[in-house]
């Protein structure tokens, strides 16, 4: 007799726990307000990244097409993956002094792991993180970027 009662208890307890789960899924089913999906390409305008979002490494240029990079190579040295290559050239000042100017700051977005070591160690704060997150391309070569814009020069006050 006790076995029979246990048997029936098992069934009722089991059905009760099943109902508890179904209540939760049922409640979500009838409450569309809980939907968390974002319709991505349509909501591009509302999508605002956080200030500190790390989308890609960029080199900010001011209105006169001037940046702060001296081409010292510290970012290249600190990068764990070798995703930064710096090509410099020598220029001569009017006084006849030779100094180093950045020719190309090549940045491999495909290898970058966003560790922020380049941005942090840069002595002249020439690098920053951009907010662009739509980095998908069909050609891997497009992920290799030259950060300094063509014809840009270094700001006067940067040492």
């Amino acid at each position, binding site marked *: 007799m006790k076995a029979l009662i246990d048997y029936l208890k098992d069934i009722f307890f089991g059905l009760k726990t099943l109902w508890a789960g179904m209540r939760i*899924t049922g409640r979500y089913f009838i409450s569309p307000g809980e939907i968390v999906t974002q319709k991505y390409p349509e909501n591009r305008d509302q999508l605002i990244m*956080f200030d500190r979002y790390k989308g890609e490494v960029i080199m900010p240029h001011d209105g006169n097409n001037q940046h702060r990079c001296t081409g010292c190579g510290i970012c290249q040295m600190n990068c764990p993956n070798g995703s930064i290559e710096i090509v410099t050239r020598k220029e001569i000042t009017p006084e006849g002094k030779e100094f180093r100017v950045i020719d190309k700051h090549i940045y491999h977005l495909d290898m970058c792991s*966003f560790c922020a070591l380049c941005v942090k160690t840069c002595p002249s704060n020439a690098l920053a993180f951009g907010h662009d997150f739509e980095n998908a391309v069909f050609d891997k070569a497009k992920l290799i970027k030259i950060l300094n814009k063509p014809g840009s020069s270094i700001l006067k006050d940067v040492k």
Partner: protein
Amino acid sequence: MQEEIVKNIILGEDDDYIINVGPQHPSTHGVLRFEVSLQGETIKKVVPHCGYIHRGIEKMCERDTYPQIIHLTDRMDYLSAHMNNEAVCLCVEKALEVEVPERVTYIRTILDELNRIASHQLWWSAMGMDMGALTTFFYGLRDREKILDIFEESFGTRLIQSVNAPGGLMQDIHTGFQKRIKEFIRYFRKKLPEYDQLLTGNVIFRERTEGIAKLSLEDAIQYGVTGPSGRASGFSCDIRKIEPYGTYPKVDFKEILHTEGDTITRYKVRIEEMYESMNILEQLVDNIPAGDYSAKMKAVLRLPVGEFYQRVETARGELGVYIVSDGNKSPYRIKFRAPNFSNLFIISKLAVGYKIADLIAISGSLDLVIPDIDR
């Protein structure tokens, strides 16, 4: 002789019915292969094969400087990325005898616990999915998103924070950090009981997990099964209690210990740890002291000659970092005692005699992260 070998390769040792669970399989959560010998549906033998994503992180570390190493450790157990980072940082700080500001220890501990909750949420999602309840996957990820938003606001990245540096943090927390954590705790305290109703209490789930794959305390210690899986068997292995680091000595929390050691206990320990982590967060979040976010460090770090060992509790168990330094800016040898590596091999003992569906549940309850095994 050679024919025999060929025959053995084709047929297995005898005429076992061998199926390969993995390396490409919906429930191995990564590229791991279980070679399973079956008799009907009952498992006779499980042999784990790993190495599909062995990247040689330890070798790579030997050529990198210490700040660079930290960002490689993210890629081991990517779900406890911050704990991995912290382990290396603590080890380097211990070697250099640097005193980190108190603010840093607080923030690191908060991030630890946030990471632990996020990791357990993902584990819960995946565990439910392994058992066939696909809906849990979405509920778990929905709640995990809130934590990732906290990370993103403060540090700009979501899964791996990349915020640790020897001596402190790379950047300070955002002003909204505390508010968001409090919001999250309020939200998650409401949602966590739903997890119990949906899965823990469910009669099908209980039937499938109760009494399955009991791990005894002796075996847990023998195999070095740590973390929630070990604590479910009564193995008191919480490094936060044994060798406290960060702010843990100042926090009042209890180590979740159970003794049954079956699949559902391993499950319960993680659920209870989520509650406990929220308790820790509540104690810390309002008390973050003001101050610097990093100690003054040299530009090039060179560790003194010697060897240093640091134990840290990640979401999956004990992580050990063993650095042998010869005085250079790169370590001479670095060894990561990965929690998942030790936790994996118990499966060939646990799963024997159970059904193939149980194997999936067991590997789900061990919460394996494959890149951490292979490194």
